[in-house]
């Protein structure tokens, strides 16, 4: 499988209108052989697309060694081959926890969401997360905070060297595939910031209750 780690390099600054027009035209040409409904959809949104291309907006950058990042938020997407018996063990582990990994994952502190998906008749696993900041720091968070849980899970992966191994990061990079498109509704909020806002929200509600009494 392709393990391309193409970085989505983005130049800074807004695109000039003439430049935007040129880009749109090039793109329209690319859609000349699209299915009819695709071409029609393009014509319907062309004005909107043009304004999106012209306006300055948040750029997708690299999350560091690998992966895409928008604002504070990065993505990690991996597809790993499963070792013999690995799918069975991992399924049993996840089932025992009712598919809920909060106990361990909350400790990482920089993790927004995370999914485990078995694909290709249980021969491969898709692991996808959304996290705060830089790739290296994120992996280090896992290593220092929940190394054993990680190894219980990742020992199902073919060739996994162990999270404490100096080769662990290279293994992850080798199987990670950088997203070409990455959208986040609130890219400026870290897990810590959301937790802080929740506390403020609660305090404000209590305050308003008291004022209302």
């Amino acid at each position, binding site marked *: 499988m392709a393990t391309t780690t193409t970085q989505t390099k983005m130049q800074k600054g807004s695109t000039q209108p003439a430049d935007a027009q040129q880009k749109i035209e090039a793109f329209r040409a690319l859609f000349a052989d699209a299915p009819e409904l695709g071409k029609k959809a393009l014509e*319907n949104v062309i004005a909107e697309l043009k304004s*999106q291309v012209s306006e300055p907006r*948040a750029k997708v950058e690299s999350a560091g060694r690998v992966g895409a990042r928008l604002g504070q*938020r990065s993505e990690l997407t991996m597809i790993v081959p499963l070792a013999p018996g690995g799918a069975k063990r991992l399924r*049993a582990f996840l089932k025992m926890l009712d598919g809920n990994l909060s106990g361990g994952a909350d400790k990482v502190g920089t993790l927004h*969401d995370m999914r485990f998906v078995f694909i290709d008749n249980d021969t491969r696993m898709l692991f996808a997360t959304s996290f705060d900041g830089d790739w290296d720091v994120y992996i280090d968070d896992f290593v220092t905070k929940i190394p054993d*849980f990680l190894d219980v899970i990742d020992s199902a992966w073919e060739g*996994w060297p162990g999270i404490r191994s100096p080769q662990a990061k290279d293994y992850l990079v080798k199987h990670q595939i950088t997203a070409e*498109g990455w959208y986040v509704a609130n890219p400026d*909020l870290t897990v810590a910031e959301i937790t802080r806002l929740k506390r403020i929200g609660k305090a404000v509600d209590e305050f308003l209750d008291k004022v209302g009494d």
Partner: protein
Amino acid sequence: MASTIPIPSKPNQDSVVEQKIRRLRELYADAPELGKVALEQGLPDLKKRELAAATGAKNAGRIGARQGKVSELTGIFPFAKGGAKRLHGLLQLLEGNFQGADAVGTVHDMRFVFLDNDTKLLFATAYDGEWDAYIDDFATKIPNAMDLLFCNAEGWPGIRSPKVKDWIVEHQVAAEAWYVANDLTVAETRRLKRMGQAVEEFLDQIG
């Protein structure tokens, strides 16, 4: 003889947990050494969690996992002929940031990943609530953008087609485990952001 109504005995929590742990140990008997060691080291914490694990991941409706208010959709779609090239072009044009999704209002995050030498597209999102309502949101709020994106997948019937939901289900793979750090909808998160700003302005004023 009076028939006795069987009273369902409340299973002993501890023994249920012990049983599960025993099964897991058996399963991990043929795991690599580091997996076995990790299991033993993680067990005390695991037991504690197992007892507290009343809120498991739930179903998002027709397909997909859900935890609290947030659900996941993970799909792998084969590209139509020329589809990978077109989608590359589209995402490049948007500089990787598909901001049009703001209009949907229930999308937390969303990624497009090209797999297996550009023959397949992995699309994975986190969103609020029910699967059906989510797909409906896309269909009503950004139908053209949906067609623009997914006409590049093999067999896409069109967002306005009555077959579109079946088509998505066919390519979706439900996650076996799903974790979400904060049980907040997109709307709630935005409200908290506004509140945080207001509080800061308020404190500035009285300071």
